[in-house]
């Protein structure tokens, strides 16, 4: 510490070979004026409104006095507005969290399908949850209705959950009927068909892609459980679905990525179908099933 000080001192001396007391006293007052500015400028910072008024009249042609209230007022309004939309968002998130936990329940129920349970048995529980979802979407729609026209402002808050919902509903629908759950049908199941709160088409499509991801695993496990006709059915369905998706002109976005992933599902199912077919494993040896996924050429 001390040596450091001495070093600094000597440095000062070396920079200042002949320290002149007169010079020092000459310098000093200037320094002081720098540190404590004389009175006229120092008045400035405090008197904002009056000063700005004089300033604007001085420097701005045709200027009117700057009046802080409108500026502050405007930001106060903004704060109020943003707080309001913040609380709305919180309420949305609360409902969405319930939706999310419902879908998790459904999903875990549906996972039993891979453990060779009978389909009606597997579907029983998840189906019971559809009513819950419907009710939750009703509540969500009610909350969102409070700020009309702003559906897409908050859309991100329920987007991923809704995609999951669609994928589950579509999977269940497919297990039951072997057909694709259409957009209108999905809306109907969620009770959204005649409300302003609709099911976004892109969310629906992404959800369908998610459902397709589920199918390879389903096929593998069904074959293991002895259902040799399953790959043919799934392949037919997935081929049609993939063809339908190819009708869409997609942008380079999330949906596009998901759609690109669908071809891997398709390939996997094709492989399973091939494995089953080449070994001549057919359901009860029924010859009709040998038509192949595309039907006769």
């Amino acid at each position, binding site marked *: 510490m001390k040596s450091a000080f001495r070093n600094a001192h000597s440095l000062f001396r070396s920079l200042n070979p002949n320290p002149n007391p007169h010079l020092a*006293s000459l310098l*000093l*007052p*200037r320094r*002081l*004026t*720098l540190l404590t*500015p*004389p009175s*006229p*400028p120092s008045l*400035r910072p405090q008197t*904002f409104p009056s000063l*700005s008024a004089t*300033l*604007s009249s*001085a*420097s*701005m*042609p*045709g*200027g*009117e006095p*700057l*009046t802080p209230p*409108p*500026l502050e007022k*405007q*930001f106060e309004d*903004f*704060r109020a*507005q*943003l*707080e309001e*939309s*913040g609380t709305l*968002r919180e309420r949305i998130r609360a409902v969405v969290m319930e939706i999310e936990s419902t879908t998790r329940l459904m999903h875990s129920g549906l996972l039993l399908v891979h453990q060779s349970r009978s389909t009606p048995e597997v579907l029983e529980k998840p189906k019971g949850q559809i009513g819950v979802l419907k009710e939750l979407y009703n509540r969500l729609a009610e909350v969102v209705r409070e700020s009309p*026209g702003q*559906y*897409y*402002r908050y*859309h991100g808050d329920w987007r991923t959950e809704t995609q999951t919902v669609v994928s589950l509903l579509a999977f269940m629908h497919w297990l039951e009927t*072997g*057909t*694709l759950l*259409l*957009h209108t049908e999905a809306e109907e199941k969620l009770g959204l068909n005649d409300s302003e709160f609709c099911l976004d*088409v*892109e969310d629906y499509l992404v959800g369908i892609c998610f459902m397709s991801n589920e199918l390879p695993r389903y096929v593998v496990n069904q074959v293991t459980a002895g259902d040799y006709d399953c790959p043919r059915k799934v392949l*037919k369905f997935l081929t*049609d*679905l993939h*063809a*339908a*998706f190819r*009708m*869409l*002109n*997609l*942008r380079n976005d999330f949906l596009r990525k998901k759609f690109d992933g669908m071809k891997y599902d398709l390939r996997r199912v094709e492989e399973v179908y091939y494995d089953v077919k080449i070994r001549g494993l057919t359901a009860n040896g029924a010859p009709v099933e040998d038509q192949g996924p595309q039907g006769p050429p």
Partner: protein
Amino acid sequence: MATTMSTESSSMKDAFSKHADYLNNLNDKRERVVKASRDITINSKKVIFQVHRISKHNKEEVLQKAEKDLVAVTDRYISRLVRELQGTDFWKLRRAYSPGVQEYVEAATFCKFCRTGTLLSLDEINATLLPLSDPSLEPLQINVLDYLLGLADLTGELMRLAIGRISDGEREFADKICKFVREIYRELTHVVPLVDDSSDMKLKMDTMLQSVMKIENACFGDHVRRSEYMPLPGSDDQTSFLLAVPDVEI
């Protein structure tokens, strides 16, 4: 069996061809909106550059031209946006048009500040957009978020303006800018945590603080160094510290 399969796949095709139309329309519209937004950005930037050409003696003509250009941006490009967007599009396509609108807010508030020294409010901007839209439709109104983001950018321009004004000797103008920018920064700090997706805004707040400090440092430098200069002969510099030195008691 085969017939039910084919009806199934054809109903799927029907549904998807509807989705294809929907997506085509949406994407085309988004593309048009992006284009309009880009045009708004370019031309708003030109307005801002025009304002920067301001100097001590040409204030009036520079601002007049800038204001005229701004009106042209509104009439030619913002109106295109207005025609495209309806109802839920305002929020749905916001990301497509937000950059342009922010730049426009920046240009409009910049002009207004140089003219009057006040902040052009969101309501005032939106009022100028009303005549552009069909009265039967819900009019396009700039939302709070884009306005705030535009304001955050405005401080960068004001910083450039302040530095320019200081080197041009317009100290009062620079001081005034400094106060104004500080005020905006202060007000925005209250609002930013409430903004929807505030990451963008937080980034801008950092840049904004940099700008505020640059102006403050420039004002400080000017303030400090002023004391070392003799007033130019004939100039009406109000205080001369060198002359005042003998009066200061040590």
